């Protein structure tokens, strides 16, 4: 079978192999697993905060997962061989484990969405929290394991957990506002907003720590994501569940992820390495191509449209208010 690849349409290279698509993939997976984690957590704590929109938040997790997997597949050099991620196993490869965990995760979401007779009981909630944390940590190991990279940090798993939760907070708030009900009129929404603010503050602290530990404190790009997220958090504090705050927050966490992934690759393995051999595809320089931007935005838009369509099509849980 001839190979299928969109890489020739990107500005990626051998020196900068991962760019916008991998950043969007990680960001969407964070939204997905973070949303699932928060839904399970609120169930475990017997909180009403996310009860009314549970169906929508699980659909959000499912759509974000689908978008993430589409994005990461787009980034392969041999898309036609992507099935090998499910069939081959390298026990020490985080990506190999992700290929096995994602289908299980998708199945779990589908069961919880389509089977009303499977309640989010305490054991299910605990299993869900553990599974979501495992997914996030395994994904963080993909970046944390390689020696010599700025990602190689003991704080990486914590960083990934907090950014996933922060992204999910903003995504859930947006879904809450636009698909569930007016948060001001919904029981539990205020407690969610309070809890969310604390989680966002925790993310800001962890992100700043990660920037300092990775040696990026002197570079403005490293701070772009955390500053935008900090702004979003302040907006959220002022007006919880505001659309502008939520979108700003999603942009902030997306930027944080993008600059974290891309900027770490600017670091050359040796002094003078880039000057030893110079060709366009081995330069330590990267800016997404038009096609990369278009594809990423299309996938994100597809997730949003998919969410709205599924929300109309899938039977809802009792108590959901249609918007």
């Amino acid at each position, binding site marked *: 079978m001839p190979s299928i690849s969109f890489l020739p349409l990107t500005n990626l290279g051998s020196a900068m192999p991962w760019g916008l698509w991998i950043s969007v993939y990680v960001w969407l997976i964070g939204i997905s697993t973070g949303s699932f984690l928060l839904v399970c957590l609120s169930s475990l704590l017997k909180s009403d905060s996310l009860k009314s929109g549970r169906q929508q938040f699980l659909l959000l997790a499912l759509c974000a997962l689908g978008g993430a997997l589409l994005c990461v597949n787009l980034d392969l050099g041999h898309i036609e061989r992507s099935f090998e991620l499910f069939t081959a196993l*390298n026990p020490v490869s985080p990506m190999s484990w992700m290929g096995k965990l994602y289908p299980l995760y998708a199945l779990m979401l589908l069961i919880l969405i389509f089977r009303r007779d499977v309640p989010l009981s305490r054991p299910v909630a605990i299993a869900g929290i553990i599974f979501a944390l495992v997914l996030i940590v395994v994904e963080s190991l993909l970046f944390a394991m390689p020696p010599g990279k700025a990602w190689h940090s003991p704080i990486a798993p914590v960083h990934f957990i907090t950014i996933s939760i922060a992204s999910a907070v903003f995504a859930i708030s947006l879904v809450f506002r636009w698909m569930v009900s007016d948060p001001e009129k919904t029981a539990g929404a205020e407690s969610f907003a309070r809890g969310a603010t604390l989680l966002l503050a925790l993310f800001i602290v962890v992100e700043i720590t990660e920037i300092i530990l990775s040696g990026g404190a002197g570079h403005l790009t490293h701070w772009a994501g955390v500053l935008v997220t900090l702004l979003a958090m302040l907006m959220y504090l002022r007006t919880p569940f505001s659309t502008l705050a939520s979108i700003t927050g999603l942009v902030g966490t997306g930027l944080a992820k993008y600059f974290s992934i891309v900027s770490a690759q600017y670091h050359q393995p040796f002094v003078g*390495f880039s000057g030893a051999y110079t060709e366009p595809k081995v330069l330590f320089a990267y800016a997404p191509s038009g096609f990369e931007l278009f594809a990423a935005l299309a996938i994100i838009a597809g997730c949003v449209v998919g969410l709205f369509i599924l929300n109309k099509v899938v039977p809802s849980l009792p108590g959901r208010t249609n918007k």
Partner: protein
Amino acid sequence: MSNESTRKTISRKDFLRTGIAAGALAGLASVAQGADATGKSSPIQPAVPWKEGDDILIRMQSDLHKALAKPRNQRKWGMVIDLRKCVGCHACTIACKAENVLPPGVVYRRVINAGSGTYPDLKQKSVPVLCNHCEKPSCVKACPVNATHKREDGIVAMNYKTCIGCRACLTACPYGARSSDFGEFYTASTPALQAYETRPSFEYREPRPRKKGRSPIGNARKCHFCTQRIESGQLPACVTTCIGKATIFGDRSDESGYLANLIRETNPRGLKEEYGLEPHVLYIGLEGVKL
């Protein structure tokens, strides 16, 4: 007299006929040996006998042939680069490019100009860097489909048919030794793609023409110690090309071999040893080099 001359003539004709036939048979045999119809690497090329005082390349080739006589799992390929001899000509980079038909964006070996010493006693050294064929390779750990694997002879190899092109191995390698083939050609924007780009390489002993829609386009690629050459009794291209004879290649497990002796005598070091990857490309004269 005429009978005698006739006998001589017949003898010369017979001799010529026999000689031509023998020569043709010998030629066919050599062609059959050197050109496999499937394109697979030819059987081991005969080595030039080595004796004390001969060129180091002949010594290395002799050691190579000794190693090839052993089962594969008893060979442990390694390399030592003598930075005292490297002149920074980059011939090894180009030889590798030519031997493996490497496209734009793919480079297996590059030569860094590195400084050493402190002012005013400054020096410059040329440091070739390539895949170190580590004992504990981080790239093998990262590969989700086992396309990158450590062979029993020590070479960290790629399976081009399995690689999905995720480039996790590129980010996992701390030496920047890996490349990704994005399917580019040097002569793509010219009126015609040139044959020197589309001709097959013989990496891993298989003919691999570079065509869109086919591996190795889309794959991760890296130095493999010119497996197609060493398994047919030839030294890697960078070794034979080096004008300073700075690159030494051989079987680390051969205690009497040139490589093992050199390692014992000079105690060379690897790059980034602190990562614990145990590289098998070692350097003489690395002390004080700022990389």
